[in-house]
Every structure is written in structure tokens, then in C-alpha cells.
């Protein structure tokens, strides 16, 4: 895909009739068709277990049970795509500090809002709180100059100040032509006005599938 002169028009991600399936073959949700271009924010919403995180992993090529198409025009090898996973296992064998977690990140050290403050860098990963870990992971993520950020529930465990810092990072990334796809619970109501006014926001709502009901859930992709 050739980028046009206007960085906002560059396609970063296209989903065409894309549907995820569970390991037993049952569909998770109905087909999704949506584009994410540079300078756009896309929010994927839905109840627990509907497949939001799995959608992100499918975009990364880590979930194979699916149909339809995903086109990712950016390359992992060029460090164009960054991914924030949900927090998983709490303990790690090696003695990492939060600062060392930040420094494990790839790419150049771009100036960031420092969601994780410098005085927290010596806190050990194993004994840090969920919020402290999340701040370290977000700081690590936004130090890169990626053009597509895939964020899985980035607001989990964050206090108000850190939430604001995260929105500032997202705003700054959109401003330099990156796109952001984030999985969240109702975050579209808290999008800063400055972001809404200057950048397109798309919302994909995945509705939960009643396992006793053979009818499939409704997917809406709406531009706000």
C-alpha cells in the first residue's frame, strides 16, 4: 500500500468480513468490516469474554481460528506496530525493576509524558501494584515511534492522573500520524474533547453471545 502525501489518509489496518472462532469452531461474534487509518482512534468495546482481546491477538497473527481477512499494512520488523497486552502472570524469575521493564522496550527512547514517574523506577516488578506495572508497560510502549498501537485495556488499574497522561500520549501519537486501536469498557465517554475535535474516533461494539441462543450478536461499527 503506497502512502499518500497526507499522512492521515494512510491505511494501517483493514478488516474485511472478519470473524473469530472459538477452538471448538463456534463463532465469537459476527463479521467485522472496518478500516483504521493513520491519525484515527478505534475503540473496541464489549462485555467480558466476547473476544476483544482475542481480536487484538488475531491482528498480531496469534489466533488462527478465524475467517475473513485482516490486512496490516505496517511491519513488526520495522517496529511500526506496538502491542500492550493485558497483565498476565504476576511473578517473573529474573529480578526486574519497573525501570528495567521500561528499558526492555524496543526502539529509540522517545520523550514521553512518563506515565511512570522516575522515582518509581527502582520498584521491583514482582512486588509492584497492578497500577504501577501498567504504568511501566505503557511507558515502555510509548517510548517507541510505532505507527500503530494496539492497546488491550490500557486504562486498567490507572489512577486519574495516569489516565490523563495516557490520553495525552494517545493524542500525541495521533498527532504524528500514528493510529491507535484500543480495547476498553466504555472509554469512549471519557475521550478528551481535544481528541474528539481533532481526530476521527471509530467504535466497534461487540455484543455478548448467549451460549444458549443460536442467534449471533450484533456488531456495530460507528464513526463518532
Amino acid at each position, binding site marked *: 500500500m503506497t502512502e499518500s502525501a497526507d499522512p492521515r489518509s494512510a491505511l494501517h489496518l483493514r478488516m474485511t468480513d472478519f470473524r473469530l472462532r472459538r477452538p471448538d469452531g463456534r463463532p465469537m461474534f459476527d463479521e467485522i468490516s472496518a478500516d483504521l487509518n493513520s491519525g484515527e482512534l478505534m475503540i473496541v468495546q464489549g462485555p467480558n469474554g466476547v473476544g476483544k482481546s482475542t481480536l487484538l491477538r488475531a491482528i498480531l497473527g496469534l489466533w488462527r481460528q478465524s475467517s475473513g481477512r485482516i490486512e496490516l499494512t505496517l511491519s513488526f520488523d520495522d517496529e511500526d506496530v506496538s502491542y500492550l*497486552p493485558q*497483565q*498476565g*502472570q504476576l511473578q517473573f524469575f*529474573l*529480578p526486574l525493576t519497573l525501570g528495567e521493564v521500561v528499558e*526492555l522496550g524496543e526502539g529509540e527512547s522517545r520523550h514521553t509524558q512518563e506515565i511512570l514517574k522516575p522515582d518509581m523506577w527502582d520498584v521491583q516488578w514482582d512486588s509492584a501494584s497492578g497500577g504501577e506495572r501498567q504504568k511501566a508497560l505503557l511507558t515502555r510502549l510509548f517510548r517507541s515511534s510505532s505507527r500503530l498501537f494496539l492497546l488491550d485495556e490500557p486504562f486498567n488499574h490507572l489512577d486519574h492522573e495516569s489516565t490523563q497522561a495516557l490520553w495525552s500520549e494517545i493524542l500525541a501519537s495521533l498527532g504524528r500520524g500514528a493510529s491507535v486501536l484500543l480495547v476498553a469498557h466504555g472509554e469512549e465517554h471519557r475521550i478528551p474533547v481535544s481528541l474528539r475535535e481533532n481526530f476521527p474516533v471509530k467504535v466497534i461494539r461487540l455484543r455478548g453471545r448467549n451460549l444458549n441462543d443460536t442467534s449471533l450478536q450484533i456488531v456495530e461499527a460507528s464513526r463518532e
Partner: protein
Amino acid sequence: MTPVFKLSRPRVSELIWIYKWSVVAAVIVSAALALIGTQLAARQQAMQTLVVSQSASLGVISALGLLAALHGEHTHPHEPSLWPTMSGFLFALVMGLISQRLIRTKWPSRNTYFIALFCMLMSLNACVIAISPGLEAHTSAAYFGDLAVSSETEAQLLSVLGLAVGVGMIWAWKRLTAISFNLMSFELPPLRRRDQQVDLAMNLASFILIAGAVQFLGLLFTLASLFLVPVILVRWHRSLRGLAWRILLATAGGAGLGFLTSLSWGDGSLPTVPTMALMMPASAVLVYGLGRLVSGTRTGAAR
């Protein structure tokens, strides 16, 4: 009266000179294995490594048995040859692939399956030794090593291999730590091609180094080098800073000190490889203590 000539025991310095290349190989290989073992422990692959190492031992034994059968049953099983190492590498690779599939199944209590595999491989090892001509002497060497038997050429080749792997591990240390962290914390495999290549290189290097170490230094030495020092030092550190170098130094130092101790203790009756293994944790304590002393001295001087 016929003079009786009494053979005197060689001095320690003479023995060190005789086995110099074996000791050099042991020290270098132990250090490289310790760096690999640190990453494997971080990925919770210790049981998998036990099985891979035993599989490498089976590969080595099988090749030695085949060589002995082809060249005649009185052929010494330790004549210089790379075939046993290559066979050990292939067996380790196959078991590595099988164990990776086992991990991906996410069956509960995976370690139980690994223990079962280990028992099978150990039993096969014993059977191959029993039915192969000329391998009886290798029964103990398979587990406890036999530094006296490897030739200078073999020891030199093993040293070069260990050095190459060790240098590679140090060079890629940060990247490998990031990969291990993402794998264990988020079940996130490496996504970038160069990360995948570095990870693959580490796995292949670990298989071949384990095969070489198992052939010449035995299973006990291999496992001790992989894990003894890392499990001690990671508990005493609060950050990664300096950890890799201390692990490297403590393991190599333990191997060297252990060799010297086995030669000089009493009448030299201590078994060499087990003594080297026991000296590794002692060396870890020493290195950690020295490190604290130095950092304490620096802090004092700064004030």
C-alpha cells in the same frame, strides 16, 4: 635385592598441566551454560531442559555404541569424534520439538509428563549401554563425566563452541530477557523477525552446547552449570544490573575451584565433576559477597 620402584602420585600442578584443556573447556562451557540456564529458568523450562539433556545423553551413547560396533567391540568409546556430539544434538533437537508441543497443549501438571519422559530416556540409556560392546566404562561417565578421557582436540573444540555461545548470549542478553519476559508474563511470543531469529539461535545453541557438555562432561555437570548458580543469585539481586556477569563469573569460578579442590583434597580421591558442581553454589556466595563488599566500598568512598 631387586630395587622396588614406587610410583609417586603426580603433583597437583602436573595434573593441571595434563588436563589443562579439559579444565579450560569445563570452565568456559559452564559459564555459557549458566547464561543459557538463566533464560531457560526464566521461561520455566527447567524440566524440559532435564529431558532434553537426557535425550542428548541418549544420542551420544547411541552414537558411541554404533561407532564401537562398526569399528570393533574393543574400540575405545572415547576416540576423538564429533559424531556423538552431532547425534546428541539431533536427539536433543527432536526432544526439544516434542516438549514444545507438550507445552503448547497446556495440559495440567506438565512436569509429570516430563518426569515420565526422563524416566523412559534414562532407561533407554541404560539399555543401550548394556547391549553395546565396549560401553560399560561409559555408564558412570554419562552422568558424572570423565575429564581424563577427552582429547586435547575435543576439549579445544568444546572451548571454542562454549566461547562462541557465551559471547552470543552476552551480546543478545537484553533482547533475550525481553523475549523471556513477554513469553512468561503475557504468553506473547516474539513478533519481530530478528527477535524470532535470536530466540531460535539461543535454542539451537543450547541444544548443541548441551550435547557437547553431556558427551565430555556428563549430565550432572551440564545441569549443575545450567541452574545451580542462577537459582541462588537471582534471589539475592533486586535488579538485573550486574546479574549476568556475576552468574558467569560464579559458575566459571566454581568449575575451576572445584577442579582444583578435587585434585588437592586429601589424596585426590574426590570425584572431579561432583566436586565442581558443589563448588558452584559456594562460588556464587563468594561472588555475591565480594560484589556487596565492592559496592559498599564505593558507596563509602563517594560519601
